């Protein structure tokens, strides 16, 4: 019997569009992936260490820059950690509503961004163009509220920095209402498409056991039937003051993850609208005392799952330790469980399904382990993924 040829596919680590560089090595035999290795740390910025040299107000500014897509997730978690140290502080109602509004607006634009990239990998470039087009009005809302389209600088320990002008609310609600038919269109284009169903169902499955074993989070866990969502489990901001549902699916495949994200976007829009309508008038921040020695934990359900912050204070104006855990840190290792046994052509979309950094796949290349010869470059791998969609479409007579 001929010796099995194993090939290594290195992916990454750098690409100018990536928010976090990673390096993957896929070990393949023929078309099947038999093992995977992941290496991170290429762009470690030492933010936890840096936070120890900043005072509590400056840290909000610092950690808002951890991520460009979900920039407000870290501040929401962090300010709650600081408030947890202080203990008995009461945050004004209006500020709690504003925190929820900002958090959910971010989820809407982040999920649309994901949908666009997933579309691109599958060869549905219209989905890519349209999802990104309709993401823009959400950024417009941010501009109206905060003056910024990306780093909103809305959070501070004790409340929020800016109020939402009553005159702006009807305009915001109109933009959100106009998004509903757009989401309906995406729902139809993605969820009712037999080609995508054939392409994504049963691919990259994570079982309930995998989720528990890896402590995976967010849409990744919810797509495998695990109903965890800190907004519901340990409500903060105004999440217990409005009506909404946690979206779950049972299958755990790439398709289920897409379904969860699309349906969640509807829930987010509903939360924002309810908050805008129910938000009471009043102050937007509380008077803060000095931060006492002690420790605090804060968390927020970011678009990718729970963001977790641990802050320890010694009574000075800077923390002794500030631990930041982004959801991808827990979701990343699940790639090992979902990708083994799958086709090389499916690797890009399985990778994208946990919603880490999509652009790294553009740097993927297949290299023969023995000769070191490059077999497939990054662009060709995306092409491979797109061609597989076309092939399925052809077989179904829908090309």
């Amino acid at each position, binding site marked *: 019997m001929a010796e099995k040829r194993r090939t290594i596919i290195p992916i990454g680590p750098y690409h100018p569009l990536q928010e976090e560089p990673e390096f993957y090595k896929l070990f393949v035999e023929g078309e099947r992936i038999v093992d995977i290795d992941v*290496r*991170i*740390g290429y762009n*470690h910025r*030492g933010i*936890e*260490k840096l936070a120890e040299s900043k005072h509590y107000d400056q840290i909000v500014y610092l950690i808002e820059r951890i991520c460009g897509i979900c920039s407000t997730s870290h501040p929401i978690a962090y300010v709650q950690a600081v408030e*947890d140290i202080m*203990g008995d502080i009461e945050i004004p109602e209006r500020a709690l509503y504003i925190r929820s509004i900002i958090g959910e607006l971010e989820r809407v634009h982040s999920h649309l961004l994901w949908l666009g990239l997933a579309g691109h990998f599958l060869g549905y470039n219209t989905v890519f163009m349209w999802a990104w087009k309709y993401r823009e009005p959400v950024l417009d809302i941010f501009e109206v509220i905060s003056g910024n389209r990306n780093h909103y600088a809305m959070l501070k320990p004790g409340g929020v920095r800016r109020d939402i002008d009553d005159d702006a609310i009807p305009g915001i609600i109109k933009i959100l209402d106009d998004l509903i038919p757009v989401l309906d269109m995406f729902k139809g284009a993605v969820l009712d498409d037999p080609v995508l169903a054939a392409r994504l169902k049963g691919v990259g499955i994570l079982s309930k056991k995998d989720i*528990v*074993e*890896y*402590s995976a989070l967010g849409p990744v866990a919810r797509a495998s039937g695990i109903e*965890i969502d*800190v907004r519901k*489990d*340990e409500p903060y901001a105004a999440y217990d003051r409005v009506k909404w549902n946690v979206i779950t699916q049972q299958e755990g495949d790439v398709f289920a993850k897409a379904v969860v994200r699309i349906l969640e976007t509807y829930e987010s829009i509903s939360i924002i609208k309810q908050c805008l309508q129910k938000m009471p008038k009043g102050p937007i921040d509380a008077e803060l005392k000095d931060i006492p020695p*002690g*420790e605090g*934990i804060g*968390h927020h359900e970011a678009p990718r799952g*729970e963001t*977790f912050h*641990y802050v*320890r204070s010694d009574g000075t104006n800077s923390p*002794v*330790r500030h*631990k930041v*855990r982004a959801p991808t*840190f*827990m979701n*990343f*290792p699940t790639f090992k469980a979902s990708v083994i046994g799958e086709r090389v052509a499916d690797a890009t979309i399985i990778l994208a399904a946990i919603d880490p950094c999509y652009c790294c796949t553009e740097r993927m290349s297949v290299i023969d382990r023995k000769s070191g010869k490059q077999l497939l470059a990054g662009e060709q791998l995306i092409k491979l993924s797109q061609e597989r969609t076309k092939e399925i479409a052809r077989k179904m007579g829908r090309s």
Partner: protein
Amino acid sequence: MITDREEAIKLIEQKFGNRILKSFRKTKKRLYIDIKPSDVPEVVGFIFRDLGARHNISTGIDTPDGIEILYHLELDKALIIITVRTLLDKMKPKVPSVAASITAFDWIEREIHDLLGVEFVGHPDMRRLLLSDDWPEGKHPLRRDFEGI
């Protein structure tokens, strides 16, 4: 998964009783338990496997008394975060690995190993996670005495 937080605390106290060096209930939703390093896999394993907690994350801190490791475990449906703490000797920080039996601790133990130089005895894959391959041995950037390389 356990859904009653008082029940969860009672079960931990019953099982580990005198091995808990100190416990502190900060609020209803936060519990801190101090244990010896050698008890870590058993206590953390019990909370994770038997009570059905989720591993939020672990943290390492360089304190004047030694290297402190905190394992944050959340019982989502019982609404409590249990933080298991242990203090390691600063000169030779060493603790049995939890990742040896639970995958969810794999990456963070590698991270703490990189940043604070803690040895997780029995870890299945103690390669570097964050530090680059050419980073000098024995330099740990989150240590208080770190002054650059």
